[in-house]
């Protein structure tokens, strides 16, 4: 078979295998090597909730999709050009994600009778059974070859078999003309204390590369030249890491120590883990006994004068509801990060959704409006977390930042920002006052109260969940209550004077305005591009600020004949918009499958309007 090198602008590759096969690492290494090579990338980890579901079953299949390209890679790609399946279950679960005619690399060794049976195949010919004859199937005895490669290594059989993902990675590096040295450098660092593993992993990686080169079963290899990116220093970053770093940046800017009280929960845990690493920045992390303690310790820390943060996912946000009300009525600065996942209840913990919006907006007793923001992409989490902290601190209130499993776990290359250009953060801290301190007295612009830290002489005061008068005394006076409710709402509404305007991508007026929020940004952006390329008269507006909405929202909506609101829930944002802007008619595109949009779904929905 003749070997061709195909130059292409983009390619999508999906690594799949048993949860124990190391596919997340394989995908991450491939993505990192591609990013370091200069490609744009977007990744999508798709893994089961079980740490080790029964081996070989469809339930235990773990996947990692990487989209690499020269320009404008905004999504992990709908369907893949190359599918790697380390076992029959992986093939069974993922063949539907392969483009027609895609290459499918299979570990021949795992396709024995037992493996096929566990995956639920009825015959011993999975290709026939799944109607994959028109695909380019590459059968490679990956397990056998890995064993052969390491037979003299001195590693035990288990450790040898575990290295088969490196063999697969080597094969893919050949297919995509990736240099090996980025991954070799990673191995050297990772196993610095176990030099034997550096050598064995490198050997398997190279043997995989050479094997792919030698077998000639791989007809085409791809060359994706480095992307033409904006000049600057770049790094890879995932959303949870970016969130943690954004909070640390806010701590540095404000000069306030960071305090994070949290309870481990998927997929938000990584933020707590990341903050726990960075004690050098003075960050204090308390792994609490439960979600409620997570937020309550943070409320206490906010009262004592720290930049307080609590992080969670769906069910954890439910548990924090009452304390969010406490933070709101005591008017203390607090950032609540909710990395949304599929619900209700435990739902599908490892899958992505945007189904916590209504809870973020309304899920508390009493009149309790809270500022709600959402991050668009993994790297955008940095900026979002920074601004969530800035608004919380300067306006003396809790702020909910919504991210999603999809962007929390997903990664992308990021042009490192110049943090010295980020704005200052100036919370209204008070050190002394004339006369008696009134804790609920407001500044006339932001409508925020002032922050007197315990330890400051002369400003002793009491706060609490009971309604208060301006001087801090408990009050059940009807007029005072009405006034305080209005004051707290007014303060949130006034944030609209401080947030950026809504921007429209594509046509600034026209037939259809595509509207989204949060982690669907990449898919909506790509769909809009495609529609514009098709000559459609469309624009795209993405909301980073949900409560309050940007001040020019009405102006933007007015300029389009139709509006379609796309979100990964049954219509939570669209119904919110309908309440605030009843003068417009909103169409909607919704998906609640625990999966991100695919671009085609959006394009089709807009074309069908």
């Amino acid at each position: 078979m003749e070997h061709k090198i195909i130059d292409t602008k983009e390619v999508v590759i999906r690594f799949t295998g048993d949860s124990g096969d190391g596919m997340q690492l394989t995908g991450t290494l491939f993505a990192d090597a591609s990013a370091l090579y200069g490609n744009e990338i977007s990744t999508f980890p798709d893994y089961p909730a079980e740490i080790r579901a029964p081996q070989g079953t469809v339930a235990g299949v773990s996947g990692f999709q990487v989209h690499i390209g020269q320009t404008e890679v905004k999504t992990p790609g709908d369907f893949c050009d190359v599918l790697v399946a380390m076992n029959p279950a992986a093939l069974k679960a993922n063949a539907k994600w392969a483009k027609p005619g895609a290459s499918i690399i299979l570990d021949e060794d795992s396709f024995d009778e037992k493996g096929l049976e566990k995956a639920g195949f009825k015959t011993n010919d999975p290709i026939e059974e799944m109607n994959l004859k028109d695909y380019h199937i590459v059968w490679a005895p990956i397990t056998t070859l890995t064993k052969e490669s390491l037979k003299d290594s001195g590693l035990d059989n288990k450790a040898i078999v575990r290295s088969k993902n490196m063999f697969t990675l080597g094969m893919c590096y050949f297919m995509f003309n990736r240099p090996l040295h980025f991954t070799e450098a990673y191995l050297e660092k990772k196993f610095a204390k176990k030099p034997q593993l550096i050598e064995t992993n490198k050997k398997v990686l190279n043997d995989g590369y050479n094997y792919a080169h030698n077998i000639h079963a791989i007809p085409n290899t791809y060359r994706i030249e480095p992307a033409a990116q904006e000049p600057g220093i770049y790094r890879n970053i995932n959303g949870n890491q970016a969130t943690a770093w954004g909070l640390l940046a806010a701590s540095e800017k404000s000069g306030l120590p960071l305090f994070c009280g949290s309870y481990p929960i998927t997929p938000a845990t990584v933020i707590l883990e990341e903050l726990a690493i960075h004690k050098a920045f003075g960050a204090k992390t308390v792994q609490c006994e439960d979600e409620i303690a997570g937020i309550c310790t943070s409320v206490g820390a906010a009262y004592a004068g720290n930049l307080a943060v609590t992080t969670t996912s769906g069910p954890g946000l439910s548990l924090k509801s009452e304390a969010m009300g406490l933070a709101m009525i005591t008017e203390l600065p607090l950032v609540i990060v909710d990395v949304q996942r599929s619900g209700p209840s435990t739902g599908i913990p490892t899958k992505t959704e945007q189904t916590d919006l209504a809870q973020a907006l309304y899920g508390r007793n009493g009149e309790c409006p809270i500022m709600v923001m959402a991050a668009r992409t993994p790297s955008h989490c940095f900026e979002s977390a920074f601004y969530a902290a800035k608004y919380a601190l300067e306006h003396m209130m809790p702020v909910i930042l919504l991210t999603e499993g999809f962007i929390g776990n997903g990664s992308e290359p990021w042009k490192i920002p110049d943090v010295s250009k980020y704005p200052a953060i100036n919370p209204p801290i008070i050190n002394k006052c004339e006369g008696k301190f009134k804790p609920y007295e407001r500044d006339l612009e932001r409508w925020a109260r002032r922050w007197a830290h315990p330890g400051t002489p002369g400003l002793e005061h009491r706060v609490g969940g009971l309604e208060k008068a301006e001087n801090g005394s408990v009050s059940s006076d009807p007029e005072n209550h009405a006034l305080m409710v209005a004051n707290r709402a007014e303060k949130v509404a006034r944030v609209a004077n401080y947030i950026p305007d809504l921007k429209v991508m594509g046509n600034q007026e026209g037939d259809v305005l595509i509207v989204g929020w949060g982690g669907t940004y990449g898919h909506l952006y790509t769909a809009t591009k495609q529609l514009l390329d098709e000559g459609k008269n469309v624009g795209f507006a993405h909301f980073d600020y949900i409560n309050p909405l940007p001040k020019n929202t009405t102006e933007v909506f007015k300029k389009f004949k139709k509006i379609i609101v796309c979100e990964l829930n049954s219509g939570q944002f669209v119904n919110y918009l309908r309440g605030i802007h009843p003068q417009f008619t909103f169409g909607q595109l919704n998906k609640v499958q625990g999966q991100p949009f695919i671009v085609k779904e959006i394009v089709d929905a807009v074309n069908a309007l």
Partner: protein
Amino acid sequence: MKYTSQDFKSDQEVKWCPGCGDHAILASVLKAMPEVCEELNINKEDLVFVSGIGCSSRFPYYMNTYGFHSIHGRATAISTGVKVANPKLSVWQATGDGDSLAIGGNHFIHAIRRNIDLNIIMFNNRIYGLTKGQYSPTSKKGIVTKTSPYGSIEEPFTPGNLVLGARGTFFARSLDSELKLNQEIMVQAAKHKGTSIMEMLVNCVIFNDGTHQEFAERSVRADRTIVLRHGEPMIFGANRDKGLVLDGLQLKVVTIGENGVTEKDILVHDAKSDDKLPIHTMLANMKYPDFPVALGVIRDVEDSTYDENVHKQVAEVKEKAKISTIDQLLHSGATWEVK
């Protein structure tokens, strides 16, 4: 002393029922605070009073200090945040048997386990007062209340036993009307590094009047309670003729002068040794009529505190860290330049 108790009194009207035991605890705290500030060398503004929900949780409003009246059960978590955020503060907590042992049980035991330097005054009146009379986790079995009209079928907690089981380093018990003893306990609790639990047996005149009466009644108190002080023999009784001895692995009440028992045979209270935990536990569990109810500081052992260790670790990591600014952090690890 630089302060008098008046300095700690707020201008708010105290709204507890006339005759409620909480008044006496407030009086005790107001009396103790000048000495606490003196002993800890702190100022009034360094005191923070935190509470949850319940009658006792109104406490912060009556103190002219920093105060946070929070939500039901969560005071311990709020206090934890305050103390970890700023360990220089002396953090006090007012809580009840329902607030700390029912809805807030989880935070309570974990604060104790971590040994955070908090001073927790638990007002134990064995009833839900603010919700107007339902049984609590410390109510006696059989109690008839609005939610147990045929008698409660639940066994109560003995708070001291729970505290020691959660590896508590400080546990004291007192009665609302024992103002002097309360003050003594509060000062000792303030000096103790770690979670200090002070169980105050208070009377609820409205919903559970006389719940502690069988041993707290003035006329019988000396015979039915024992005040423990570190280094002193465990002697009690109106005539100071009763004492506690170890009989095998059990405590036993003896009378000095009877059966050849002399004062030398009586146990000497050692609150400070960690290895006395079994005896501390037995003392905390003593119940009338088999035993006198133990008052005073039952356990006061040293251990490092959580808040101290959080800051110690931050300092250690800071010292060794190569990265100390966000800019350095962003440029750490694998980066590449696009020209």
